[in-house]
């Protein structure tokens, strides 16, 4: 059964931005969308091992810092070359000003 884990405080992530969260030997990316919703995905790009938290969030897209591969961070969908494999996404909820992700 997946656990809810506290990833960060709401204020740790700027609007239309992403931060890194490491837990249990794994790495995740936590996003705050322009309309103030939170999302979480695996931390590394599915193309090569670059961390998405160094990338650029534009609307509902996260762009990988290494080869500019794009994903929809809300759905995990790969949006074209050089990324072909979707990102894994995780449920997110906000509790008492904390961002919780289910992993």
């Amino acid at each position: 059964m997946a656990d809810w884990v506290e990833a960060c405080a709401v204020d740790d992530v700027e609007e239309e931005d992403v931060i890194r969260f490491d837990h249990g030997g794994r790495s995740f990316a936590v996003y705050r969308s322009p309309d103030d919703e939170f999302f979480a995905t695996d931390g590394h790009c599915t193309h090569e091992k670059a961390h998405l938290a160094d990338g650029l969030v534009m609307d509902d897209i996260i762009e990988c810092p290494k080869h500019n591969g794009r994903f929809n961070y809300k759905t995990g969908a790969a949006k074209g070359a050089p990324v072909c494999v979707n990102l894994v996404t995780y449920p997110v909820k906000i509790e008492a000003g904390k961002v919780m992700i289910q992993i």
Partner: protein
Amino acid sequence: MTTAKTKRDYSLVGESTRAAIETGLASAEWYHTDVPRKAMKELMQRSDGPAIRDTIIWLAAILGSAAGIVWFWGSWWVVPFLFVYGVLYGSSSDSRWHECGHGTAFRTRWMNDLVYHIASFMLMRNPVQWRWSHARHHTDTIIVGRDAEIAVMRPPDLLKAALAFTGILDFRYSLPTLMRQAFGTLSEEEKSYIPEMEQHKAVVVARWHMAVYVATIAFAIALGSWIPLVLVGLPRLYGTWHMVMTGLLQHIGLADNVVDHRLNTRTVYMNPISRFIYWNMNYHVEHHMFPMVPYHALPRLHDLIKHDLPEPNPSMWHAYREVWPVLLRQLKYEDYYLKRELPRTARPYRGEFHEVDMSPAAE
């Protein structure tokens, strides 16, 4: 420092490939200058404005010079128009291909894709194949056996490098490659970096390119005129020189098999016209270190991180004068290279990355 000499194998499926994977040089962690997230976020921001402005100027200049070619065809007045058209078609298309391939020129995706495909056609490059080869170039920059875009291999073939300015060699490679791909055949090397699910797209797009060339030849025959070919296809020959002049400087004569772009990549200050043609790719260390930063923000990035980078060459002339003796020496000693000095404000090169296979370097 001298090490045992081994001949470089530039094949992407050979001995150097195996060695690069085994030693961890392939898909390695590269050095990055520290830039605060807030500053990097600002630099990475996309906008359509600068690229729309530049593309309007670019297309207007292409159409204007093409009109001049048609109008003055048969007189010497055609020469300056050929000069301008050739460089715009055969050289500036390379930087448009490059920036739009990264998806950084425009904020709007379809604009990047449209200009990317137009520029790929001008360059006789299969846009699917080259998107993947360029991704590899960024993953494994100048890693022998991995990087598909090493322009001058060691020992350097100087005749080949000189002929590159005429476009002849590239033309001889590009057109037959497109033709082969149009017939449905991808080479083993191409298959090594184009994912299987993308390979059929490479074939389809090669067929489209070839169809346009066949139509252009048919049109030229029907008109009984060279003009269609002078405007479509042949600029890849007579207008390539500026692309080669600027592009060769990106990595030539510098270290290979290192994981620090400060060692294997060169930033050169250039005049504003060349920078327009080249879309600021003269800031090449900066581009490789942070490929998310659009071309129009590279001068700002340069100002922010230059304390950590080797001194840029003040001009193309300076850079070629610097590299020429290195190339001559590489003819005898292919392990020789030019080691860029860092300013005192820079973080040093990391020995554990760079000293293991270091070869004799020009200090």
